[in-house]
């Protein structure tokens, strides 16, 4: 016999269960349960953990410690510096301006700043820095090559073809192989000066130097006080013209003080006073007195 008082099970959900299921099927509520609730719990844990000052400090300390431990590993240490392409005294200068106490971690080296420092040296044209495997800081230096001696108010300087100062010398005799340039702004026109020196090759034995006048034009100074005044524009052409006349008529071997080519269409020659006197007497004899 079936049990009395216990009817068949009612499959219907209660009103509360029905409403709760409908609430759970609401998209926003569902999303809140699936993503929002776990995310907010995580955030809450993080906030609670970080609200303590001591714990924050400990975490910062621990982080610094880990960082230092990794950076000071053997693999990242730089033990010595190698300099290539520099004369001994320049490498001495480089070692002086880069005060590094080896061994140190490669994370502490600021290569860009060091390169700027090395390239800031007058004698250095460019510098390449890299850390080679094995813990070597390798500096490849390309030095400036002096091309001219520049006499300026501060003394005698060596400059390269671009007019950059290389070093100072105490007397002209230290580098007799280099041509001399004089005058303010002469270093900025060093390239033109080199062209002129090349063009004045036939006069090489007599050339004393090049004088920059008013920071705009060149005057070629020869021995015996002879000068060739060159124009601002195309000075090389003008010099070649003078040399051509010299080769044809021995212009510069005569008693000529000055060849003025400043106006190329009106070359002028100034004679020495005695020569001018003799010339006048000769003319008077030729033409007769009075």
């Amino acid at each position, binding site marked *: *016999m*079936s049990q009395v008082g216990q009817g068949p099970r009612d499959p219907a*959900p209660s009103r509360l269960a*029905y*409403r709760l299921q*409908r609430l759970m*099927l609401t998209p926003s509520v569902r999303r809140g349960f699936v993503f929002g609730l776990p995310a907010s719990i995580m955030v809450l844990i993080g906030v609670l953990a970080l609200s303590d000052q001591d714990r924050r400090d400990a975490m910062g300390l621990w982080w610094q410690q880990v960082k230092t431990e990794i950076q000071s590993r053997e693999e990242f240490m730089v033990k010595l510096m190698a300099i290539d392409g520099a004369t001994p005294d320049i490498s001495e200068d480089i070692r002086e301006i880069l005060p590094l106490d080896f061994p140190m971690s490669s994370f502490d080296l600021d290569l860009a700043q060091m390169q700027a420092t090395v390239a800031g040296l007058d004698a250095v044209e460019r510098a390449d820095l890299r850390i080679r495997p094995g813990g070597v800081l390798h500096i490849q230096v390309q030095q400036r090559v002096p091309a001219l001696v520049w006499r300026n108010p501060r003394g005698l300087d060596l400059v390269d073809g671009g007019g950059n100062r290389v070093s100072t010398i105490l007397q002209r005799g230290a580098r007799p192989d280099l041509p001399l340039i004089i005058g303010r702004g002469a270093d900025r026109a060093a390239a033109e000066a080199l062209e002129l020196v090349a063009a004045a090759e036939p006069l090489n034995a007599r050339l004393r130097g090049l004088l920059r006048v008013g920071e705009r034009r060149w005057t070629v100074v020869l021995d015996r006080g002879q000068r060739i005044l060159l124009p601002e524009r195309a000075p090389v052409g003008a010099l070649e013209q003078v040399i051509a006349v010299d080769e044809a008529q021995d212009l510069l071997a005569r008693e000529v003080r000055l060849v003025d080519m400043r106006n190329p269409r009106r070359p002028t020659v100034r004679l020495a006073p005695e020569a001018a006197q003799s010339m006048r007497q000769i003319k008077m004899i030729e033409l007769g007195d009075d």
Partner: protein
Amino acid sequence: MTDLYQSQRAMRAMRKAAMQRGVIAVLDVGTSKVACLVLRIDGPDQFRASDGVGPMAGQGTFRIVGAATTRSRGVRFGEVDTMPETERAIRTAVQGAQKMAQIRVDHVIATLSGGDPRSYGLAGQIDVGGGPVTEQDVARCMAACDVPPFGEDREVLHAQPVNFALDHRSGMGDPRGHMGNTLACDMHLLTVDSKVVASLIHCLKRCDLELAGVASSSYVSAIASLVEDEQELGAACVDLGGGATGLSIFMKKHMIFADSVRMGGDNITSDIAKGLQVSLSTAERLKTLHGGVVATSMDDREMIALGGEETGDWDRDQRTASRAELIGIMRPRVEEILEEVRTRLDAAGFEHLPSQQIVLTGGSSQIPGLDHLAPRILGQQVRIGRPLRVAGLPEKATGAAFASAVGLCLFAAHPQDEWWDFEIPTDGYPARSLRRAVKWFKDNW
């Protein structure tokens, strides 16, 4: 009348909102079972033309994502009888369907099989004065239909314009834009008991559901069971349900008559229970497993154990009955139902229709032998119909018992134009009288 018009319009707006959200549920509250299907509306672009799937009978736009059925309680003759019980049954079905679909549904389209539906044919006629027919004219024409006095406590469930006629041209589907003088329309009006609708709505409200539409079960099961040709040429659909048998007549794809007989499968079950002295649940089991309506000599020898009572009386629990006895009990009741259907069809003038096709559907149409019995009563062109296949429908819900649920899906996706879908006629505005005055002048001078 206007009150109902407004409430039906509100339901249409609700249905539109549900379509926007893309989820709607259909609920078939029947006498023997409550079925709930959750539809996902995908819009018309679900299939591309290259897929080879066109919008077949308008099913391409939705998919059933949740389905649940539960035994109905508290419903008699297709009407809510015990409200808390019915509410619990609805809750069970809706919760099951929601759980399967994993979507919450708020809008529901329900069907009504009881409520003593009555059909009325209405006719209206207006003068459109030779111009093209506008939407306003159509609305005015429908408003011109003289509504029969169907009583205070009745409510209009369907009001479908079934035919438009412009001058001598009849059978127009859409008169808008045509030129003519006289526009006439025929409308089919279906009314039900307003108390029955109200109690169903109340049940749904208690389940936190919004009603987005109500349809007659005779109508929707015909949509699902009649094939397109039958709807076009004329056919009757008989939905043999649990508590009520719905019948509807279709012609030119419009329902022109609907009625319901307050008899069904439950009456057969109670007959068996009374005749064989068994409980209702045993009688239901005997009916579904061994039932039939045509007895053969074999059935005399097939003895069925009636057991399962557990009364404690051994002799009573061991009773048997021959299958012929069972058939002898079922057959008169089935005959009675079909006779009643025949009477109703005759009263509606079905015999005058060119096509005499009758389609039997609903749970009770699965009784073996019905296809031999029904032609004797209803005429030769009878077939047993199963509902259309729709996308995503579970296998267990494809039977004839789910004809009205499937029909509701089709109805939800593609509702027919009803009276309240048209514009409200704006009568008596000044321009009209002015125009009339101008016309009078033109005619007289």
